[in-house]
């Protein structure tokens, strides 16, 4: 009963360590050739799920299918997946060539063919001529590439990556992100990538599963996650977000669909409004979706406030604006396009926004 498009299908998987439940009823499908990320804070179960795909952890119940084949009885060394470990796990007693060729032993290739394949891999990871180097002489970034080559040379159906960029410094990490994405497009293998870095996940992935407490909160494209998060956890995990309490009040019109604290009765995207009248809901609005101005703008949707404080970040500034009827100031992010006329703390300002920038969250 696997989905026809699904290359990897995870179905109702649970994992218990003693009485601790590390994975709670996770189901998802991953398509062939996809760059798929598991994103979450440490301890959310993302690494456990990855290790279950690799076969290092068994599923307590549920089933994982890879390319239509059930995996529960398949040991790690027979699975069509390869992994890049967080520590890279480069064998220190072997040189670079023997590290990359490690998995080829069972194919019983002639030495010349084997060396040729290794050289191809070294080209691919941009380390040509490194074959005879000792593993202990490599830098962090080089080890990371060797670990990639060692896995990719076996042409796995799926490549699993466990926070492979975590140990690198910022500059190298940015460069490796670009290379990793280009490499994935080049080889066309399905990548499952574990990270706690939301920016990294947004940059690299076709789709992302946001995990928390062993559960998958939402699976979506980076844009989908950012623009239409389903829950408060997802919304606050990715980027910054203002949350407002509101109550559904359609009043038979297209406007005034939700009564929101501090903002009044405001229109919301019709397709998001599924709850009956008088239901309390949570409204989310990204800081950069607001426009801030010193004069009252012509826009319909606007509310007066007082500047609370401002943080200057170079390309943009974060402003915090106090509005009536709401305790917490509203966070607003504005690009620094030119000289600002927004004034100091205490100045009168106007907030405006467009109706389709509003997200109505599911109740958590």
């Amino acid at each position: 009963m696997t989905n026809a498009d699904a290359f990897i299908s995870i179905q109702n998987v649970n994992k218990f360590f003693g009485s601790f439940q590390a994975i709670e009823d996770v189901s998802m499908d991953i398509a062939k050739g996809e760059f798929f990320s598991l994103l979450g804070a440490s301890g959310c179960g993302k690494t456990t799920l990855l290790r279950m795909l690799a076969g290092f952890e068994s599923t307590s119940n549920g089933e994982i299918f890879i390319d239509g084949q059930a995996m529960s009885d398949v040991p790690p060394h027979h699975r069509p997946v390869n992994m890049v470990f967080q520590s890279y796990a480069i064998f220190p007693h072997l040189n670079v060539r023997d590290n990359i060729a490690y998995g080829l032993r069972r194919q019983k290739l002639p030495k010349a063919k084997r060396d040729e394949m290794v050289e191809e891999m070294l080209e691919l990871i941009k380390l040509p001529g490194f074959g005879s180097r000792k593993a202990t002489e490599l830098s962090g970034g080089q080890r990371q590439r060797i670990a990639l080559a060692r896995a990719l040379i076996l042409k796995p159906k799926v490549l699993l990556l466990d926070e492979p960029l975590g140990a690198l410094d910022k500059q190298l990490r940015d460069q490796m992100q670009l290379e990793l994405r280009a490499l994935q497009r080049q080889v066309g293998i399905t990548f499952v990538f574990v990270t706690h870095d939301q920016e990294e996940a947004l940059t690299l992935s076709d789709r992302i599963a946001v995990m928390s407490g062993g559960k998958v909160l939402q699976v979506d494209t980076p844009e989908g996650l950012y623009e239409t998060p389903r829950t408060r956890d997802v919304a606050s995990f990715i980027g910054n977000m203002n949350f407002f309490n509101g109550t559904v009040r359609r009043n038979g019109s297209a406007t005034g669909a939700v009564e929101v604290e501090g903002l009044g009765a405001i229109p919301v995207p019709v397709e998001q409004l599924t709850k009956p009248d008088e239901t309390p809901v949570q409204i989310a609005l990204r800081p950069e979706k607001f426009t801030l101005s010193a004069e009252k703008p012509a826009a319909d949707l606007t509310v007066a406030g007082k500047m609370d404080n401002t943080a200057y970040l170079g390309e943009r500034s974060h402003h915090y604006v106090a509005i009536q009827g709401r305790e917490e100031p509203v966070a607003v992010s504005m690009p620094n396009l030119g000289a600002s006329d927004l004034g100091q703390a205490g100045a009168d300002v106007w907030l405006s926004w467009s109706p389709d920038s509003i997200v109505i969250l599911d109740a958590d």
Partner: protein
Amino acid sequence: MSGTYIKRPNRPLQIYAVIFLIVLYTPVLFIPMFSFNDSLYVRFPLQGFTLQWYGELWTREPVWNALWNSIKVGVVVSLISTLLGVVAARAITRYRMPGKSALVTFIMMPLVIPGIIFGVALLVLMSRMGVPLSLYTVTVGHLIVCLPFAVATLLPRFEGFDPSMEEASADLGENGWWTFWRVTFPMVFPGVIASMLLTFTISFDEFIMAFFLTGTDPTLPMYIWGQLRFPQEFPSVLALSSLILFVSFALVFVAQRIGRVGLEDEL
């Protein structure tokens, strides 16, 4: 002032270390000293330099037999105890199991239990079971003495390497058997050599177990013990003891050096 706070030269500590070594090794140094003394009697003043006692050893058939017995026992003990040590160290470091620390304590226990107790216990057991005393029974006794040393030498090796190395091997398509030979064994190999050298030396020098469990074929320490009854043989005993001292010291020194290879610059 050179060096960091902790690495600064410390004069009292240096003096203490020198005194420590003198107290430890002075008694032992008398043995080689008198083995070159041209007199039957161990007393000052020294009578002059001679290699006579070493020459006598060379021509003595029982010495060679005892040496051969000790080597046979030592080699078998070092192989078996190291093999068991590898298995034990791997199990201790790789598997989650209840009562692990208690298990390690029990494995290390023979280090502190008096040899005479183990010797008597084994002697009683062997005679109850009707097993005649021989080099085999000595080997069993030595295994008990050597196993803790093998485990103690190998444990840091297994603890010192990242378990994801073995997972990486499995991930790359190797089963448990090949993973052991291609990854685990090469990485713990220096520890294996160190363990074999150390356990061989311990077995080679061991006396108490051999005293209780030897049949008609003596090991080298047993031979020395036998010769102590004959005063005229004493200088030869000193010569033999000096040789054993030297070989033991060399083996343990080498074992220590090899055991540390690669541990400091581990990935």
